């Protein structure tokens, strides 16, 4: 991982010096040693702060909406899952592809800081990743855990380590990891009774403080004016005054990204209340593939998303109401 970061940094400086790009979008250390933060670097000197390690989870694609409209070319480092988001943004004409030079960067999976802390790594000052194990350095000594156990949810359900769009790649340790199963969680909920499902979501959604972090981080949520910011919409309030509004926010948020969500997992990662938002998004992803044919948003930049397309012999909505079983 260390090596990948060094190569990436060198290559970025090279491209800057050649004048091929005039700035670089990457990550730098945040407030804490484990909150790598997106940053734009404009010179070799600034690039000294560049980091890329197992905490570089932020998806940089969304930043390219703005960056790609500015003067000159920007170099962006994208992890495999980030490239799906970028493709989707091209499809929606939200980014200017010509202005971006993409380096697909190897990813060995990102660490979930909360899980790591829960595994005893309090007072975290840094971590080493050897691919198999994480050695977390803390104020109170080292804690060693198996990496698999502290991966972010999105990485546990990784779509595969293939970059779907790039200009060049930095891959030191090639991985031929197959896409993992993403839908077990959805299936578990589907298997519950309606009342259990209701109770499950009631418990989850009532935790929501409407910080809107899930929307703000989402690369698909790129509207200039969001419905939830419109005071006339009746859903613009902060913490929801009633249970309906909690449902409304989450149904509409998930619906707005249905067919466009690449399952980059950022919403669940940033939620301070630990609400499993990916389980909402993945329900739509699963349904669309089941009803309208296998579809993966962001896999390419041309295919029409299922909800802006149709076929004459689509299933009728009554297959839901007539599902049988209790109600």
């Amino acid at each position: 991982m260390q090596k990948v970061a060094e190569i990436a940094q060198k290559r970025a400086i090279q491209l800057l010096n050649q004048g091929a790009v005039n700035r670089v979008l990457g990550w730098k250390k945040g407030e804490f040693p484990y909150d790598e933060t997106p940053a734009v670097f404009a010179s070799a000197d600034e690039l000294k702060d560049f980091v890329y390690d197992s905490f570089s989870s932020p998806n940089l694609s969304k930043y390219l909406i703005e960056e790609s409209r500015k003067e000159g070319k920007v170099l962006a480092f994208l992890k495999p899952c980030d490239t799906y988001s970028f493709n989707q943004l091209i499809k929606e004409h939200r980014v200017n592809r010509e202005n971006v030079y993409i380096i697909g960067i190897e990813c060995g999976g990102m660490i979930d800081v909360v899980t790591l802390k829960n595994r005893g790594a309090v007072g975290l000052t840094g971590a080493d990743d050897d691919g198999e194990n994480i050695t977390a350095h803390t104020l109170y000594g080292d804690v060693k855990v198996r990496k698999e156990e502290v991966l972010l949810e999105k990485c546990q359900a990784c779509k595969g380590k293939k970059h779907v769009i790039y200009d060049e790649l930095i891959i030191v340790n090639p991985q031929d990891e197959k896409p993992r199963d993403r839908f077990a969680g959805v299936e578990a909920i589907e298997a519950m009774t309606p009342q259990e499902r209701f109770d499950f979501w009631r418990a989850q959604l009532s935790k929501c403080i409407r910080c809107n972090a899930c929307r703000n981080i989402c690369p698909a949520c790129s509207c200039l004016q969001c419905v939830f910011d419109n005071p006339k919409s009746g859903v613009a309030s902060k913490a929801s005054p009633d249970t309906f509004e909690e449902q409304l926010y989450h149904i509409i948020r998930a619906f707005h990204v249905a067919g466009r969500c690449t399952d980059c997992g950022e919403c669940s990662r940033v939620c301070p209340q630990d609400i499993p938002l990916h389980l909402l998004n993945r329900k739509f992803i699963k349904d669309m593939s089941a009803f309208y044919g296998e579809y993966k948003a962001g896999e390419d930049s041309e295919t029409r998303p299922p909800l802006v397309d149709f076929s004459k012999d689509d299933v009728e909505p009554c297959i839901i109401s007539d599902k049988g079983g209790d109600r």
Partner: protein
Amino acid sequence: MSVENKEFKPTIVAFCCNWCSYAGADLAGSGRMQYPADVKIIRVPCSCRVNPMFILRAFQRGADGVILCGCHPGDCHYSTGNYYTRRRMTMLFDFLDYLGIERGRTRVEWVSAAEGARFASVMNDFVKKVRDLGPNRKITDLRCKPVEKEGE
């Protein structure tokens, strides 16, 4: 409870597209076909005008069931509107089911301008199903609802 249940009159919101279903409702009316007065019709230019938010809003403001009616697939006045409706509503309804909301509370039906009798029978059937489900308490602004007493 059983006595109350018999008296329960569900509030039904029916979104009807101007070109077919609304005309179908009209025909049902002029033909004096009976369907419950609890069905509140909202006319929309095309079934595809109905945004998922409309359905949710109807529930919020007190609907016990929401039905969306449009032209038969292939007959939409705007050629393809109802094809989009079909996908959109399939997705929405399955999602509501996923959240644990009774799936009998939502429905899509295709009713043409000539199908007055069908309009009435669709409404009768839907109202009956929703009446059996009882009042909507799972997706609504509960502050607007009467308090549910213990043991009910």
